[in-house]
């Protein structure tokens, strides 16, 4: 359950981060979720689908040229949320997907998610 604990610690440390999930982008499955309230599966599936569109679907060559590398994280608004997706440096198929308020410190989310991913993927 270490992954679940790391995920919760990360989410609780970032004000405005309402939902944090640990997902396998290759299969489109959410493996762990941390949130105040129980979320319908459709919501989690939609979050994962959007993250796949941002992080997995081929990066246009002009985008790759601009960034000078692949896409490591993405931020996109939803109806009432700011969605932040952060890919694992160790395994690009794994990512933390967050649903945040628009006032959330995006840099704190990205840095916190990267640290949580590293902690989750570090062997005991």
């Amino acid at each position, binding site marked *: 359950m270490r992954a679940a604990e790391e995920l919760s610690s990360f989410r609780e440390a970032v004000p405005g981060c309402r939902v944090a999930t640990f997902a396998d982008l290759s299969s489109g499955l959410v493996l762990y979720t941390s949130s105040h309230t129980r979320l319908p599966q459709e919501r989690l599936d939609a979050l994962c689908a959007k993250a796949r569109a941002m992080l997995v679907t081929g990066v246009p060559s*002009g985008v790759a*040229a601009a960034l000078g590398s692949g896409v*490591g994280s993405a*931020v996109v608004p939803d109806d009432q949320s700011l969605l932040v997706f952060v890919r694992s440096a160790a395994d690009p198929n794994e990512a933390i997907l967050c649903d945040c308020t628009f006032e959330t410190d995006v840099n704190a989310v990205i840095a916190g998610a990267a640290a949580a991913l590293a902690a989750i993927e570090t062997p005991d």
Partner: protein
Amino acid sequence: MSEDRRLRDKLARLASGDDAVVDGARRLFARPGEDLVAAILVEIDETILARRLTFRTEDGRHLTAEVANRRLLRLTDLPAGIGDPALSEPLGPESDPVLPSIIAALRTFAAGEEAISVETGPLPQRGQPDVLGRSAAALAAAAGIALYAASPAPDASDMPAGFAGDVSRIALAVRTFGPSSVPPFGPDADRLAALDDSEIADLARRARPGGDPAGAFLALAATGEDASVLFVGFESAGASVAALIPAREIGKTISLWRATRARE
């Protein structure tokens, strides 16, 4: 350098919140492609009353500049290992030979820092050296820095209106697509050269699948720490703005986009 440019830069910083005072200090950031010495010199240039400006790094090192009439009177409290004590001598008109050493000391002080803080306090009359000091412009010339003209944005007459113009003040490169497209501009303009309309349309579909992308945006960050971020905002009628920004500016860019949309 023009007073117009100086005022516009100051207004942009005020609007962005960069000039917010926290615990008595403000944070100074380097402009894209420049070091923090330019920010220090701008502080001197914006100080008219006699003041003691204390610049402080994250790890607590600090140095103090005694300033009046937009001129540096002298540096004091130089951290150990930076320059020699002669740098703390009051500056007069004959001080040209020492200016490069002062700039070198400032560069050493700010090297490796993402931001520094500045606290401002009064400089009592009795504490002021009886010297004319040297202007920020003279120091900038010694540093090879254009205090205001080196902003990545084009001059006002060329600057696109709205979000593109606003974000250009913090961006490495900006480009607009659609009916009134503007070619890439900014210090890293070439990095946006390969983006084309079809790729922007592709990104719009990803940001808002099956719907009108107007008002939506997305920000894609490169892998690695402190990497660049490509921000694309989708306006109406197929118009879009792409901006390449430093990673630390992502929150500010999103706020800027939302504020611009709220105004329109």
